[in-house]
Structures are given as structure tokens and as C-alpha cells.
């Protein structure tokens, strides 16, 4: 028996519970550390995978249920006439409508690296409808005063080396009434986006200006944004909007922002099935591995536990010693793994999308760790508790 064992047992029955567990845990430091590292790695992976699921779930939950988007049902088909805005406005429960048309072109050569994209809309309505975009102070007034104005994201200005007050001439596929394809805008202000502010490089222009000077698709919009008063009426209102356009050349599909987020998540492929399958494989492997370690570790100490029983430890107490030891091995290692997952999550943002290691993910992870610890310790611990003292001691 080593010194720590003696110290731990010397304080009298029940008084030195934690030191006893601690001594058991570090009986073979190499094994404890290696097992701990396995647990850390497993929970790093579990945290990240569950974080991917949570990321999708969050995107869906964050989406606004009171915001509807009306698109043409068949993409690339007939655009919706702008006059429909007024009709949509008359549907009961509709609070606000804004149109959106797309404008694209290149600022300079080479075109592929210098594309400028802009949303043509009524800026005042648009910013009220889309709270993830925030116009800087004075921007909306400036857009009202200057029809050829453009609001740009700071990232876009930085990318092209422009500043507020500059003008930008964009060569576009969109033909102007004067026969040219060069559209000039003055940058009158900036706006921020909540999502990925560093990667959002686009502008917002006045729909009225674009529509007055373009030759094709005049008087049309690609999307209507609709704010409704009561989110629970989203489905009925969406259906009412689509009825306006039924059997026209531009049938629509109206979805709430939330439906759309869910739709996009599904488009990725079956992400959740995939992450769940891997998580299952990881958990099984980990359960097997740690179960084996616990079995070995407890098995080696049968005589020592027998001594404890001789000293008057009850079966329940011996059991709780074993369980506590397993928990002490699992929980800190799992917590460390989840913390690493939290730190690693931003690395996948670019290619995978948001990985959210939320408190819920962490809680699920820790619960899982606790369950695995108890499961792994159960079999050997029960055997331990049932064993007669004589038989146990004779194993010495």
C-alpha cells in the first residue's frame, strides 16, 4: 500500500472520502492521464459536432417569424410587378412591405475580382424590415436627398479603397436608357450587418433610381419583404399573398424567414444524420475504452477495497467510492474537451458555417460524460460490492 493510501484511510471511517478517491484515481498516473486525454479528445469532437447541429438550429430559431419573403415560385421566371406592393399592403395583418431588386456589376478590371452587388430598395422601409442591417446615422436622410446615392458596408469600402463622399462607377449587364452600361453612384453613407460583417461587401441603392434608368425589367421586383403584425398568422398571410399571384405569369412562393432558414439547412444535405452517426461512433468507442480502464483499475484494487470493507465500509460506500472516482475522471476531462471545442468553433466558420458551442451543448456533453462514467463504473463496482471480504482478500 502506498503512502497516500495510508494517509487517506488513517483519518477514520468516512472522514477522508475525497482524498481516498483521489488516491485511487492517481494510482497509475500514466493510465489516468491517457484515459483523461481520450475523454478530452472525444468531447472536443462531440462538442464541435453537436455545435454544428446547434448552429443550424440557432439559425432557424433566430430567423424572424414575423418577416415574410415573397419570391417567384419558379426561379428565373417572370418577375413580380411592383404594383403588387400596394395590393400586399391591403392584406389584413400586413404592416410593412419593401421591394428588392438586384443590381450587379464590376468596379474595375479584372471584373471577377471587383464585383459590386447592391440591393435596390426603398432604404427607409428596408432597414425597418431587416433588423440585421443597421444604417449609420444620417445615411437614410442622405439617400432620400441623393437619388443616385449608395450606402456601403465598411468592408466594401475597405476592399475597394473608397470612403464616404467618393463616387463609384459600376459597369453592369443592366443597360441604361442612355445606351450605356456604366452606372455612377455617390457613396453617401455606410451600414453595418450583424452577420459576418467582415465578409459582407455590398451596397444598398435607391430602387426608384435604378428603375427609372434601366431598360429591361422596369417596374418589377425579385423579392418583397413583408412584416406582419402577428407571427402566428404567418402561414395564412403567406397563402393570401400567394393567392394574389396565382395563375399569373409570376406565381409566388411566400415563406417566413424561419421557414427559409430551415429550408437552407436542409439543402446542405442531411447534416444532422451525418453528425449524429459520427457522434454515435465516438461515444461507443469512448464508452468501450473508458469502461475497460475503469474495470481494470477497480479490479486491481479488489484487495484494497476488501480492506476497507473489513474496516467497516458498507457496500454502498464502496460503490460510491468507485462512482465518485469515475466521475472525477470524466467530468473535468469532458469539461476541458468542451472548452477546447468552444475555442475551436470559430475555425470552421468559413467552410462549415456557424458552430455554436452553447451552454445547452455543454450541458448535454457533461450529462453524457456523467452517464458514461456511471455506466463504465457500474459493472466492476457492483461486482466489487457483492464480493465477500474473504474472497477479495485472498486475491492479494
Amino acid at each position, binding site marked *: 500500500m502506498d503512502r497516500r493510501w495510508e494517509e487517506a484511510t488513517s483519518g477514520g471511517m468516512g472522514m477522508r472520502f475525497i482524498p481516498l478517491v483521489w488516491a485511487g484515481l492517481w494510482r497509475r498516473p500514466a493510465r489516468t492521464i491517457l484515459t483523461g486525454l481520450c475523454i478530452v479528445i472525444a468531447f472536443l469532437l462531440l462538442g464541435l*459536432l453537436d455545435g454544428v447541429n446547434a448552429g443550424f438550429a440557432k439559425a432557424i430559431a433566430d430567423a424572424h417569424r414575423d418577416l415574410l419573403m415573397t419570391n417567384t415560385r419558379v426561379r428565373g421566371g417572370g418577375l413580380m410587378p411592383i404594383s403588387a406592393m400596394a395590393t400586399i399592403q391591403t392584406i389584413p395583418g400586413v404592416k410593412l412591405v419593401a421591394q428588392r431588386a438586384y443590381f450587379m456589376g464590376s468596379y474595375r478590371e479584372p471584373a471577377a475580382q471587383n464585383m459590386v452587388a447592391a440591393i435596390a430598395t426603398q432604404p427607409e422601409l428596408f432597414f425597418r424590415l431587416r433588423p440585421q442591417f443597421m444604417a449609420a446615422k444620417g445615411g437614410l436622410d442622405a439617400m432620400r436627398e441623393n437619388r443616385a446615392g449608395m450606402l456601403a458596408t465598411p468592408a466594401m469600402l475597405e476592399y475597394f479603397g473608397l470612403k464616404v463622399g467618393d463616387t463609384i462607377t459600376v459597369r453592369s*449587364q443592366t443597360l441604361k436608357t442612355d445606351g450605356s452600361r456604366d452606372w455612377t453612384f455617390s457613396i453617401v453613407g455606410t451600414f453595418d450587418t450583424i452577420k459576418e460583417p467582415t465578409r459582407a461587401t455590398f451596397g444598398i441603392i435607391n430602387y426608384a433610381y435604378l428603375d427609372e434608368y434601366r431598360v429591361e425589367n422596369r417596374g418589377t421586383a425579385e423579392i418583397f419583404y413583408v412584416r406582419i403584425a402577428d407571427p402566428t398568422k404567418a402561414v395564412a398571410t403567406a397563402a393570401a399573398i400567394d393567392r394574389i399571384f396565382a395563375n399569373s405569369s409570376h406565381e409566388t412562393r411566400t415563406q417566413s424567414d424561419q421557414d427559409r432558414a430551415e429550408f437552407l439547412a436542409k439543402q446542405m444535405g442531411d447534416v444532422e444524420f451525418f453528425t449524429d452517426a459520427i457522434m454515435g461512433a465516438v461515444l461507443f468507442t469512448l464508452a468501450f475504452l473508458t469502461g475497460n480502464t475503469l474495470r481494470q483499475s477497480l479490479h486491481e484494487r479488489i484487495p484494497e477495497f476488501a480492506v476497507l470493507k473489513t474496516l467497516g465500509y458498507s457496500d454502498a460506500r464502496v460503490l460510491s467510492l468507485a462512482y465518485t472516482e469515475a466521475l472525477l475522471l470524466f467530468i473535468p476531462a469532458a469539461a476541458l474537451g468542451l472548452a477546447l471545442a468552444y475555442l475551436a468553433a470559430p475555425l470552421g466558420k468559413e467552410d462549415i458555417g456557424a458552430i455554436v458551442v452553447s451552454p445547452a451543448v455543454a450541458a448535454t456533453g457533461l450529462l453524457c460524460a456523467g452517464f458514461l462514467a456511471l455506466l463504465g463504473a457500474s459493472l466492476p463496482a457492483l461486482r466489487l460490492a457483492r464480493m465477500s471480504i474473504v474472497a477479495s482478500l485472498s486475491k492479494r
Partner: protein
Amino acid sequence: MNIVSQILAVTAMNLRSIPQRLGNSLVIVVGIAGVVAVLISVLAMYLGFRTTIDGDASAERVIVLSRGASAENESGLSRENVAAVMNAAGIKHDAQDRPVVSAELILVAPVARKRDNSDVYVTLRGVGPQYFVLRPELKLVSGRLFRAGNQELLVGASAGGQFAGLEIGSQIRLQDGDWTIVGTFAGGNGSRESEVIADAQTVMSAYKIDAFNSVSVLRASGDGLATLKTALAEDSTVAVDVRTEPEYLATASGSVNRMLQLVAYSIGSIMALGALFGALNSMHSAVAARTVEIATLRAIGFTSLSVAIAVLIEALLLALAGAMAGAAIAYGAFNGSTISTLGGAVWDSQLVYSLNITPSLVVIAIVLACVLGLLGGLFPAIRAARSNVADAFHER
């Protein structure tokens, strides 16, 4: 005894004792099986995706896009542009002296995925009359070809298998009414099989679109490619980029590709690290449990090198067993199954591909398992070799 027979003797002794410490040895097998199963499943997904896209490439085919466009859906070619390309020198002509070309445009059609009934898009490709001449690998397998002017569709075999409502005779609501499916086609490696095709002119009149996305041509034998490039460069009415199909596909690998690659390698390496700790742990215990046996061997004249190598061999064999088990699991669960994810010709259209656990994937798995086995066995082997004979007996 020479070193080889010593190693064989010790290895045989070690292997014969495995049944007595089965749980411990299985840790290596199960740990590595888990890593291998996950890694090769994800790699099979990645490779399935890649080969489906790249596999149809033929250096005989040339794709013409508008200048600066890196993908079909970024490119736009007017009817005049297309006429200029079709009449250019360097294109192969058929028996009737018509150039073998297909001017194409891509759109999407809404469909439901059979497995989870989710709404997704397939690529709807408007093609020229020579499409099947240009792509001899594709064959009509049932039904008939579409007739120009009728709103009729042909469905690729993979798309028909993966999505609902694409049987011959059924109709899809697209722009300008219902379109009827009149036949199915198959062949090649599958990226085209994920698509639905129709006559380009019919699509353009229904969608009121007046531009194509791309022109694919068969190059004339000899220096047809150079001739075509020169001819189009000298033609001042067009601004296009000319690439062979393999060149085009190399530049057009999308974000899904990057994501799958990242997922495969990051999950694979994290799991490998976890399995390495597991293997270390297991071999460590294996050596620790046999301290006395090893000391006995050393005492009767076995060299430390032969003891160490025998430990390594044991680790290696267990790892290989794990690799086999993992490959078998992946094979049983996924081989031959067909999935669809984003990755079609349009940014949000689906690509259908199958997962194949190929021999080369199994080789990767075996190499990985060997590396893990060797690394996992190395430190325990050194420990075994260094064990002091006198101390080992003393511990008893």
C-alpha cells in the same frame, strides 16, 4: 537464439496471452475501428462528390464562358455570342457538316427528396439538339427525346432515383405551366445524371430569358483547341474564356468540396489523436501487466531489442485488426448508398452521388492504423525494453 527467432518467440508468447487480457487488447481494436470507420466514410463521401464532378471531364470537350466568369452560372452569352462561337474555326463537325456544339442555360426546378421529403432544387439545364452527340457517354435509357417547342423534360437517372415525382409521364410545374417528363437518360460518372434537361430554346421562351450561360463544343482533332482559342480571341464581337472541360472543372470546385475535405480531415485527425491515446493506454497496460514475464525473458537472455520489437508487432497486429473491422463496418453501412447534397451546377442545386469504399480507401485506413499502432506501441515498447530485471522481480 538469433534476434529474429527471439522476436518471433516473444511475439508468439504475447499473442497467445491476448485471450487472458481480451478487454484491454480490444481497446486498440475498437478504438482504431471507430476512427477508420468514420474516416473512410467521410472520405468516401468526399471522393464520391469529387469523382462525380470530375469523372465526366473529357479533354475533347471545350467550354466557352463569358470573360471573367469562373462558373457557368456567372457567365452570360447572348444569341449573337453563341452564333459567333458556333461558327468559329476549330470545332468538330458531324457527318452533316454541322458543328458539334450545345448552347446551354442552367436554372433550377423545385423537387422533393424521397428520403426526407425536403424541398430541394435540381439543376434544370436547357441544352442544344446536339447534346447527346457532344456527350456520347450519356444514353437515353427509357422513353423518348423531348421535342423542341413542347414543354418536355428528360430526367437523369440519379436525379430520378433520389427525388420524387420524376417518373416518365409525370409533370412538374415550372415557368409557363406544367412540363411533362418524357424520358430518362444515364451514363458517365453522374454529375449530368443529377440534372433534368430540356430544349434550350423552349426553356428560353418559357422563362423569357434571352441569354445562354455557356457553350460546350467538341474540338476538332489536331490543334482544334488552339485554332478555336485564336479564332475567338480575334473576334472583336465576343469576350469569352475558352477552357477544356478538365480545366473548367478544376477551377469550378465549390464550397461543398472544401467543406467535405475540411470535415474529413479535421474529424479524422481529431479521432486519430483520441485513438492514439487509447492505443498508448492499452499497450502501456499490456506491458505493465507482463512486467514479470518480460523480466524473466530478459533474465534468460532475450535482448531488450527483441522484447521491444515484439511489443510493437503486437500493437501493429491489433491495429490492423481494428482497421479491418472499421473498413468492414463502413463498407456494410454505406458502400453503394446514394446521397444528395448541394453541389449541382447552380449554387443551390443538388448533386446526387454514391459512396464507394474503394480499395484505395482501405489502403489509407490500413496505413493510418499502422501509424497509430506503431506510435501507440512505441513508448510502451521502450519501457519494456528498459525495464530493470531486478526491480521487476522485486515488485512481485
